[in-house]
């Protein structure tokens, strides 16, 4: 539910939202975190191990990204997991929807040609 609200926000961002997104992405570490999170959900402590900075500093970066609406954090037991909100999988699916519609159109047109009396268009 909460995630959905954030998705909606990203779909129609206000100027303030856009500012927050740009600020969030203005930092190289945060961009790297987003890249990793888009690949797969990340554990905050695993993320912390990757950077030459304290756990608290990494957590702070994640918090900035969370406020920007780019990532969402959830708890699983003692772990904190970070996942993307900019739903790349959803984007890819929409892209495939378009591509599939294209091919369905083609197939319909093929059927129309095949349905013509012999000789026409051949």
């Amino acid at each position, binding site marked *: 539910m909460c995630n959905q609200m954030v998705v909606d926000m990203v779909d129609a961002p206000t100027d303030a939202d856009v500012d927050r997104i740009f600020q969030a992405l203005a930092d190289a570490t945060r961009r790297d975190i987003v890249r990793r999170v888009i690949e797969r959900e990340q554990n905050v402590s695993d993320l912390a191990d990757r950077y030459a900075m304290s756990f608290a500093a990494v957590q702070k970066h994640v918090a900035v990204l969370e406020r920007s609406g780019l990532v969402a954090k959830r708890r699983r037991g003692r772990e904190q997991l970070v996942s993307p909100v900019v739903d790349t999988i959803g984007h890819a699916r929409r892209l495939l929807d378009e591509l599939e519609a294209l091919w369905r159109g083609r197939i319909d*047109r093929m059927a129309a*040609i095949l349905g013509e009396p012999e000789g026409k268009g*051949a």
Partner: protein
Amino acid sequence: MPVIGTERHDSGFTITAEFDAPVERVWQLWADPRQLERWWGPPGYPATFVRHDFAVPGMSIYWMPGESGEQNYAGWEFVSIDPPVSLVVDNGFADQEGRPAGDLAWNRFTVGLEAIGTGTRMTITAGFDSPEHAEQMISLGMLEGSVAALGQADAILAEGG
């Protein structure tokens, strides 16, 4: 409706269709560029095939009209042809000589034809080579907002496969 089913994969799909025509007849829709031109582009955006080798190695070069009447060139490269049952093609934006052009990677599609009684079952497998490729296209904004219109999407995707 000729389409009887679609199956989704991570980065693509397989569409199955059935036609009330023999395999050899359906194959002609692919082999004959004049027939191909009648169905490849959506209504209002006909493709003009200026070259169609239909052989391996071989290529096709075609263009489709853009929004302001410009000619958007694209190409096919034949990966394999096994008449009249299978065809594998790489497809993407090209220059007028059929050389890949633009920022987008080419995509592969596979066509299979199989006789069912007196008719034909056709399977088309298409999509993106990888989720990364899909993301690349997304990051280029190729399908955002205004390009949702099918005709436009067709031109911009260069038949993405």
